């Protein structure tokens, strides 16, 4: 499959008290329209990924609000929601719409405004993405559920908290060099270890911040991008989604592996490539442990070895595969509905060669993004390629 990426646009990722949800939507969408160099009337459908505007902002119908404020009326518009996999799902639906032949050009946009609420309120709201009627009564939330996974991983594979801390060190090294990142400072293993405990063994530097952000892509039929030789010839060449159990209850490492490994295997087949071909990867890491889990599921390392790349350099800029050159969710934050679209935009920039110089992988031609949500219920994998013919 090939779906052309005609344009991308993104807002900075940070706490933006001076901007509303609609400000973020309009900023990201307008940038994508400008980048694509098309007219508004050319955009036939709009897919808006947004998880929690009804709770975070006390407004609903985000898709309908976006289509109006972006000046896209009377084009089709809908809001998409699938927990942390929301933005990736919007992208999936956009790709499916183009591939079906129904539309020639669509906009996929993710946005989330999280910082109008206090952290305790926001955490409660996020916890509702899993079972808020049964499971939540145990006091389990996303950080604590993932902390259980981290402890199980360490017990099973015999790695230490210090070993895992290298993941945060790598993400922060690149996050410090990404002007769009939320947390822009470097840190050491020692500083990660000394950062306050959030849910043992997860520490503050292993947890993503609450972020306000939006990002958008304009997708088109392959021939339309071919007809625009002035545009970078970057295509989505695989889009693959899967589900797992809705409950955060499981700390099973097999379930966690399967959640991304299944869609990844399908995606590699769809694009006709293998894990060895990938230059750059954006892997979901709202909590540090999820990066090694993703690395293993995408086939970049054996099970239990996923943490080693951050320690030995093989997942750094010049390593075998560069993982999370954006700083990942640990530094970009996790603007729920915008995370999947943000990953996509960052990979497209890498393939275009337009990423900030210090985090640009040389001659990047094939990229992958992997998003998980729920955190055990959504697996999403997309592959992107620069194809000159």
């Amino acid at each position, binding site marked *: 499959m090939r779906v052309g990426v005609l344009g991308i646009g993104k807002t900075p990722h940070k706490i933006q008290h001076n901007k509303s949800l609609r400000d973020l939507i309009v900023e990201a969408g307008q940038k994508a329209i400008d980048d694509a160099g098309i007219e508004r009337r050319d955009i036939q459908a709009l897919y808006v990924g947004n998880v929690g505007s009804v709770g975070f902002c006390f407004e609903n119908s985000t898709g309908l609000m976006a289509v109006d404020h972006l000046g896209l009326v009377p084009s089709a518009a809908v809001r998409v929601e699938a927990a942390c996999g929301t933005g990736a799902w919007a992208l999936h639906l956009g790709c499916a719409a183009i591939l079906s032949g129904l539309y020639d050009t669509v906009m996929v946009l993710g946005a989330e405004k999280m910082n109008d609420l206090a952290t305790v309120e926001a955490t409660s709201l996020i916890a509702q993405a899993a079972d*808020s009627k*049964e499971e939540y009564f145990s006091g389990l939330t996303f950080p604590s559920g993932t902390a259980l996974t981290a402890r199980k991983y360490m017990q099973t594979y015999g790695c230490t908290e210090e070993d895992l801390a290298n993941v945060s060190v790598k993400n922060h090294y690149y996050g410090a060099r990404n002007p769009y990142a939320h947390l822009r400072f470097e840190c050491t293993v020692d500083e990660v270890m000394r950062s*306050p405990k959030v849910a*043992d*063994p997860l520490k503050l530097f292993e947890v993503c911040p609450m972020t306000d952000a939006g990002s958008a892509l304009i997708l088109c039929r392959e021939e339309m991008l071919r007809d625009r030789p002035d545009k970078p010839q970057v295509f989505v060449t695989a889009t693959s989604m899967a589900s797992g159990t809705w409950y*955060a209850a499981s700390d099973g490492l097999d379930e966690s592996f399967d959640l991304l490994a299944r869609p990844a295997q399908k995606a590699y087949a769809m694009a006709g490539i293998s894990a060895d071909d990938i230059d750059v990867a954006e892997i979901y890491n709202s909590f540090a442990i999820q990066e090694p889990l993703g690395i293993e599921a995408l086939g970049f390392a054996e099970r239990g070895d996923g943490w080693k790349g951050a320690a030995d350099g093989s997942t750094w800029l010049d390593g075998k595969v560069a993982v999370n050159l954006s700083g990942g969710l640990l530094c970009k934050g996790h603007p729920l509905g915008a995370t999947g679209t943000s990953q996509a935009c960052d990979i497209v920039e890498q393939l275009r060669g337009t990423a900030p110089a210090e985090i640009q992988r040389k001659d990047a031609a094939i990229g992958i993004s992997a998003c998980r949500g729920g955190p055990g219920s959504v697996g999403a994998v997309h592959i992107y390629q620069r194809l000159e013919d």
Partner: protein
Amino acid sequence: MTVSAIEFSRLGPPKLRLYAMRCTDCNTLHPWWEHYVCEKCKGTTLVREQMSGTGELTNYTVVYYPPRDFLGQEPYVVGHVRLDEGVSMPAPVVGVSEDQVEVGMRVKSVFRRMKLGHEGDVYYSQKFVVDPNPPKPKKKAAAKK
């Protein structure tokens, strides 16, 4: 907000006991008191079964930054308990300090207050405490078959 008072009137009764759902086709147990399709055999006849409430703590975390409903309880311990019937479920563990909790601990369920509601209404649920009289290994093996 997790549940309204009216919703809690539906959720409340199952919380008085510790239940799991057993598949009548393949005997697999699923956590909680609601489950409609067996994850193992896809059978659709599942029945509610009361658990003995005893089991082993297989994993835990200590939460320092709680969501709103648990504010004031931090730091609190939540983990996974494998009940002697063989099913695992997330479980708050109370009455044990953060430096005493350990994997492998024998625990048993108790009925406790979960939180106070906005208008002073009290929400209850099942929690776990360290089992002062852990069952003998023989009993455990028999129950697990």
